[in-house]
């Protein structure tokens, strides 16, 4: 191999590396500009972020507190209740991103028991919107069906109006055959109510004088059949869990992007994933250095 060939080979390697760098930089700039990317490109980006070797694969379970619908609506000059339909549309997009990222379980905080304290008009409009969404899930063209999510409703069903409950049941029935992915919708839910229910069931199912431990209580939580929660995201910059998955999120990666839920973009989503992976590998290196388990 002559010196010319060596120079050519080196030049080729240099230009390939440069093109990868420019591609990454270019992609980052596109993401920062919040350009709407075609799905093919989004899938490639998510694949590059989540499925590289050595990362342990994509997060298995991610949760969202979809905060900020009303604030977004007010900023747009709309009525506060007009923010919820936009939030619903954003949810469907986010489910698609999660599917493309290989995330199998998504849990969302749709309606808290505390939210019943809102005005009757708002509660009614949310219930109506929820019913519309659940009815749509029964249809074949719906995104939840297309993404093959199995629907589960977590919460105190007794407080939910009858017609919404029936709609939920139909949607659960329509999606029960999907096995790969699960969408947990926390509706009429608080984490404390969940822990009380789990503890009560653990006590009732206790055999003899068995001592209850935290593993036994965990087995009775609403999310017992799901993997451990990897990431919890709350939009709108409010740094609280607000009675959502308190037990499950004890060791999860918490992210509080400033964007409201309707403004939560693919860029924000990828940012959270990059932070999750980046900090995890940094922590692993530190633990190895300190000989920590």
């Amino acid at each position, binding site marked *: 191999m002559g010196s010319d060939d060596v120079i050519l080979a080196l030049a080729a390697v240099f230009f390939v590396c440069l093109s990868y760098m420019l591609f990454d930089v270019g992609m980052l700039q596109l993401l920062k500009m919040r350009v709407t990317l075609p799905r093919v490109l989004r899938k490639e980006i998510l694949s590059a972020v989540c499925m590289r070797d050595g990362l342990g694969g994509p997060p298995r379970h991610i949760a969202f507190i979809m905060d900020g619908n009303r604030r977004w609506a007010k900023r747009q000059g709309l009525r506060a209740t007009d923010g919820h339909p936009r939030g619903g549309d954003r949810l469907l997009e986010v489910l698609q991103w999660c599917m493309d990222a290989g995330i199998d379980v998504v849990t969302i905080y749709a309606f808290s028991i505390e939210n019943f304290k809102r005005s009757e008009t708002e509660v009614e409009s949310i219930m109506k919107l929820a019913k519309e969404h659940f009815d749509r899930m029964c249809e074949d063209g719906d995104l939840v069906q297309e993404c093959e999510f199995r629907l589960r409703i977590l919460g105190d069903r007794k407080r939910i109006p009858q017609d919404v409950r029936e709609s939920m049941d139909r949607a659960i029935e329509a999606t029960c055959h999907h096995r790969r992915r699960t969408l947990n919708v926390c509706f009429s839910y608080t984490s404390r109510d969940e*822990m009380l229910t789990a503890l009560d069931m653990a006590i009732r199912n206790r055999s003899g004088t068995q001592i209850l431990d935290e593993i036994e209580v965990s087995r009775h939580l609403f999310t017992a059949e799901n993997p451990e929660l990897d990431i919890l995201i709350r939009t709108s910059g409010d740094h609280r*869990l607000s009675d959502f998955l308190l037990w499950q999120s004890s060791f999860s990666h918490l992210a509080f992007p400033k964007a409201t839920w309707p403004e939560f973009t693919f860029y924000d989503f990828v940012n959270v994933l990059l932070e999750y992976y980046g900090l995890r590998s940094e922590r692993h290196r530190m633990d190895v250095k300190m000989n920590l388990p």
Partner: protein
Amino acid sequence: MGIAWYGIWRRLWEGLSGAVRIGGKLGPIRGLSSLGGLCLAVCVDPQHARTHEGRDHLVRLIEWSVELGIGTVQLFDGCGSLAAASEELVEAIKTHRQRHRRWNPLSPAASSWASPRADGAGRRVQVRISGHSGQGYHTIASQRAGEENWENLAEKEEPLVTSSDVTVVRLLTPRNGRKAIAEYGSWLANLDSFTRQSEDDRKAKIEEVLREDPLSIMAGGEPNLLIAFGSLPSVMGFPCWELRLTQLYLQRDLRTFSRSDFEEILLDHVSTPIRFGR
């Protein structure tokens, strides 16, 4: 003498940088003067909890809390190192308070906007840890107002002093979290009267027990805010029952956490409204 001047300069600098960071507002900051009812939780990862340097920084943070008149400080780490080293921690707090009064004759408050007793001199500090038997909180050390000496109260049960001039420091372990909830489950399961009730009544009873905490094995109150120091943004296993409405501040490194950072967090907390679901 040089050290004294360094201390004076450092306090001036912290005060100035704090004023600039909080928007240049000089004068009373509304809310920071009434922190007596505040419950602050501090959560650290093993890297900070197991090292002397990390504990020294925690002691500094406790001292700031005392100076600002914060009522309760809950200290937690997931491996229980802080509770295990409680005696060492108490000694470090004592030493810090003595050194603080000797070498920093000027008021140590980085902000002149805090409570009138900003130097914390008249304030008591009470360090409490749940007993080894898991029953009750034992005060292991308490320094009464105006006294130089610390009273050693190891293993002696003392009712919690809820006075406006006391800062209570509670050392928490994972035992005060999920384990405590499960322990109460076992306790209730052995009560005949409990199992015979309806589901709603049982849940109400469980909630009452967790709230009243008769065995004093829970965290001892819902913190208003939690500052977590760790390489990962998480609450690291802090007792979950109490985190319902707690405002979370996730920081990377305790070593670089300054007094002005601390005041900025407190200011952000008091100015953030809680909507309670509305």
